[in-house]
């Protein structure tokens, strides 16, 4: 799998504040990467450096073999920058069409592509509206649409679903899922369940440092952990589960949630667990193969 982004010993300082400190990682073509971390961890700074908005203080970064901001990257990398807005004085279609023309399309092709991306975010009906007339959520979706103009190889979305209603947030998640494989996505969000569903790699930033870089998130965890959410979880339940064959460790991570570590054996563990639940007439809410992203990052 070829590398599309290579970051080496990257640091960024704003005055006396170190926003990024010696960050190193690579991103492979076609992967969907989650950029996670608390507020002020340096996520947006890292996004901005990859996009070429900010210059790193130290270190190097290569995007498709070029420096960020290089003219060779125009049309190949696109982004939804956090809090960036289109010009409120012009219509959505005019601005998106202009962007597409800047990417090298003819006027006609640009107008057709504008229509295509607006349909992707279900906003074709506001093409002739000025962006100043749109709601916050609509403006966000228009900004996502501009990131899909042409056929970018890398798409960076900073807080893409923040501020969207659940229906539209789901639609955006579905859209990203449908485009996965053709494009490399880098997503930043505080919604870990969203990232868990979409991403195969996690970059966890904390105080400007990359504290974990996990690839193939789901596959590496599969088979050794299950996460079980139960209705009316109590200690006897927990004890009975702990007695199941193969259970190595059991941890209660929330009032209704258990993370069970087990050793692989002939009889599938999830079947044993479901049989136990059925025999005791318990009610389970959710059974997850592996650990949730939240548990991996914040519960040890």
């Amino acid at each position: 799998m070829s590398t599309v982004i290579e970051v080496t010993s990257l640091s960024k300082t704003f005055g006396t504040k170190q926003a990024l400190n010696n960050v190193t990682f690579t991103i492979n073509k076609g992967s969907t990467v989650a950029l996670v971390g608390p507020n002020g961890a340096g996520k947006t700074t890292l996004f901005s450096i990859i996009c070429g908005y900010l210059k790193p203080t130290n270190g190097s970064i290569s995007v498709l073999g070029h420096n960020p901001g290089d003219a060779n990257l125009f049309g190949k990398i696109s982004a939804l920058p956090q809090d960036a807005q289109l010009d409120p004085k012009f219509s959505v279609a005019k601005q998106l069409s202009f962007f597409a023309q800047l990417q090298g399309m003819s006027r006609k092709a640009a107008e057709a592509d504008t229509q295509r991306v607006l349909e992707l975010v279900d906003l074709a009906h506001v093409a002739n509206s000025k962006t100043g007339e749109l709601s916050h959520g609509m403006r966000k979706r228009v900004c996502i649409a501009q990131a899909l103009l042409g056929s970018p190889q890398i798409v960076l979305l900073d807080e893409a679903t923040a501020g969207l209603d659940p229906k539209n947030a789901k639609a955006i998640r579905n859209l990203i899922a449908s485009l996965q494989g053709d494009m490399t996505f880098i997503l930043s969000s505080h919604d870990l369940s969203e990232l868990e569903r979409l991403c195969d790699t996690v970059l966890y930033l904390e105080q400007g440092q990359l504290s974990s870089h996990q690839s193939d998130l789901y596959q590496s965890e599969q088979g050794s952990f299950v996460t079980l959410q139960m209705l009316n979880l109590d200690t006897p339940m927990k004890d009975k589960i702990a007695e199941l064959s193969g259970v190595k460790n059991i941890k209660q991570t929330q009032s209704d949630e258990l993370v069970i570590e087990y050793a692989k054996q002939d009889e599938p563990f999830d079947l044993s667990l479901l049989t136990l639940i059925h025999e005791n007439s318990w009610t389970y809410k959710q059974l997850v193969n592996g650990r949730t992203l939240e548990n991996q990052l914040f519960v040890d």
Partner: protein
Amino acid sequence: MNFQRTWLFGQFELTRLFATKRGWLAIAAFFLVWLMVLRYPIYNAVPFISSYEFSDIVGQVAGTVGLSALISWPEAELAMFWLIGLFTFPMFTVFVTADQTVEDRNRGTLRFLTMRSTRLEILLGRFAGQVMILASLIALVTVATLAMMLYRDASLIASALPKSIAIWGKLLLTCLPFIALMSLLNLVTNSARMSIVFSILFFTIVASVISYLGAQYPMLDWLNYLIPGHQVTELTGWRNTPVFAYLLPACQTLVLLGTGHILLKGRDL
């Protein structure tokens, strides 16, 4: 640098003026102001300048301030327009071109653009757009003045046409460094309004200090060449205009845009 993208930026700036309601209102206001200038100061001054009774005194006064060549023009409307335009268009330019990149930077719109074009293309494209806007507006007033003059005496058309084109070109050339100055100020201020305030401070305090220093210390006299519009008095009289009066605004424009490019290239967006 890609000229196609730069040209697209210039075109987009034109639509900001000619394809928006706000732009048409601005054009209407501009045209009405000039209509007043044409109707009253210029229209009323022409018989006075051209009259036989006052020709001696007007000639003497004009000669004193180096305008004798202008006063001898039979196209008196164009002469008046030239004098008024030469001193008002630069000031007008500062206001019209006050927002080139600054509001886009504040709004984050520049971030969408830098994913698709270089910063130099944005800077030059926006500058070119403002030049085209100014060229259109100056042309509009020049044509209006020409029309008013032809209404008085249509036989002057042969001599008036080349003069009108020359006036248009010289006014535009004079305005170029003012546009470039606003391009630069957009990069060091946080709003179009602050860019205007900084330009006013520049043309009052900084220009006065430079002028004073140049007068006190002749070795510093060259600093005056940094001030856009320094050559205006050389252009006014329309006779024996030195080459430097044409070169200076072009050089000032290049220096200001070059400085702007260095600033924009290195700054965080």
